């Protein structure tokens, strides 16, 4: 399956190279303002997720503090990587983004807007 999204980088729209879903996103390609109309909600959610969540919750990254923490918390009963979870409801995603947990702070709406939050939920709920 292929995907592509449009990111708005400092006012300049530029296409991100289409990649396999299995291909990890390079560390440097995270973080950018996300164009409101880019792709489907889930596709946009992936871009928002990469922007704000991936640095801590990256799949299979021993340095990612969020993934590492959830490994210890769930001890294999649930996947440590959020993108592998199948039980994340929009309410749960919203709760943690707006309330934080442990050292993870909450996010302001100038960082993750309500629309971005809905997109992240759609992405994490998608296959």
């Amino acid at each position: 399956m292929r995907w592509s999204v449009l990111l708005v980088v400092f006012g300049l729209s530029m296409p991100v190279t289409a990649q396999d879903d299995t291909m990890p996103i390079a560390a440097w390609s995270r973080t950018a303002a996300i164009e409101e109309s880019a792709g489907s909600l889930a596709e946009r959610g992936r871009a928002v997720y990469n922007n704000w969540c991936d640095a801590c919750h990256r799949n299979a990254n021993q340095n990612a503090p969020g993934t590492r923490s959830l490994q210890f918390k769930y001890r294999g009963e649930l996947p440590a990587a959020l993108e592998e979870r199948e039980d994340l409801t929009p309410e749960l995603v919203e709760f943690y983004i707006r309330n934080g947990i442990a050292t993870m702070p909450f996010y302001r709406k100038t960082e993750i807007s309500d629309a971005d939050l809905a997109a992240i939920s759609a992405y994490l709920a998608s296959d």
Partner: protein
Amino acid sequence: MPNPPPGLSERQFRNALTQLEEIVGREWVFHTDEDVALYRDAYSPLWGEDEERHASAAVAPTSVEEVQDIVRVANEFQLPLYPISTGRNLTYGGSAPVYSGSVVLDLKRMNRILEVSERDKTCLVEPGVSYFDMYRYLRQNNIRLWVDTADPGWGGLIGNALDRGGGYTGTDFRDHFDAHCGMEVVLPTGEVVRTGMGANEDATTWQLFKYGMGPWVDGIFSQSNFGVVTKMGFWLMEEPEVAKQVSITVPRREDAIALVDILHSLMCDTTIPSQTSVSSPVMNGSNDPELVRLRSSGGASDAEWNAYAQSVGRPFWSAGFVLYGAEKVVDSQWEHIRDRMSGIAGVQFNETVTHRFPLTDDEVEAAPNKARFGIPSLNLFGSRNAPGQQPSEGHLDFSPMIRPRGEELIALYDLTGKIYADYGLTPSPAIGMMFHARTMICFHPVPTFRNAADNQRTRALFETLVTSCGERGWNIYRIHAHFQELGMSLFDFNDHALHRLHERLKDSIDPRGVISAGRYNIWPRHLREDDA
């Protein structure tokens, strides 16, 4: 809806918010309880207590003109504003105002990289630009320059520089305020000024020459409340051919004296270009009873410590740094460093990694000490480190500065180890960081919690650390908003003459007292106890 700022009626507050909505649009003025709560300090040592600082609202502009209009409204209503850039100043107060009831001026939406000059090795950015943003821009555009990043990559270049934060790479770049060159400031009256060469509209050197002509005023906009900085220029580091990360270990506690003296010399003569960290693999070990006893003792002897070091089979000190440059130059520097250190009995030299640039995406991902190579990350954030362990909830940064002397490093951690133990907490890891060649900044995390009882102990511990170290001349360089009055009180030469100067500047530059009241204990006249 939160309470109005002190001194404003509900009607005045609503009128002020209506005017702010006309400037930025209704979507970008936040005044519901739910939205305003997102501006709390996530690591507040006062979480949930009456004294916790809260915003009354927030407003998020996208341009300098909107900032000017907001400041004019603030003057009309005497509405206290609290500017933040990316708002991620965690451990120092986050995005919560110092003066409760202030309206947060959230500059995150001003996130444009206005210019990067590869030839001049400079950039000009707005306050919402994070280290992640700048790194991505450089990488995306194949620009062979580095931005020196704070530990958490979501921090902003401007906000971190103005709070005088630091990083890890070359000498000209890792003191983030020192690495800036030129700024644009909206003064508390709404007037815009540009500093340095930016005051000359035809100058081609705004980001190249700091001083311009006449008094250099940039410093008064750091750790202060004299304006809203809307643009800053920064110097960027040229990507080296290679970077060799190394460490040096010495076996005995007293070896810190020779080790730090030589490191200091090698940094002053520019052989070592990077931040240098001196930590103790022995003192930072597991919490076995003997280690706890030694660290809590307040002054165990070298003989006791060295016997313990031998029993656990670890060198007492380890110094880590990076050499940047052409490979043959770096190799010569490393050889010279080993020669200089060779007189310390038992010294060992370790080459951790040598990177050649540019890095591939996989190498970027795999690099464990990313910030030392200009790569932002969030990897320093804590996590559970064992199954079932409770994660930490936050921390404050207590970082006293000492002279670059091994004996002072030892004495500091003797003192603070006992203080932590007296409060029933595990002593801080021992690490002296030479952000500058001529001082060591010694990081001590102090845990914060989401409950009042534990936070009460945290505050008492923090205050004891500040005052006890202050009595020995080990002052701090930066401090959480709640403790800024305490921190500034230590700068007391001539009956606090410096503080009086700060207040006179405040009264002159911000006569209505609308910008960041109380930041670094600088209060406008109408909120000063002695003048109220």
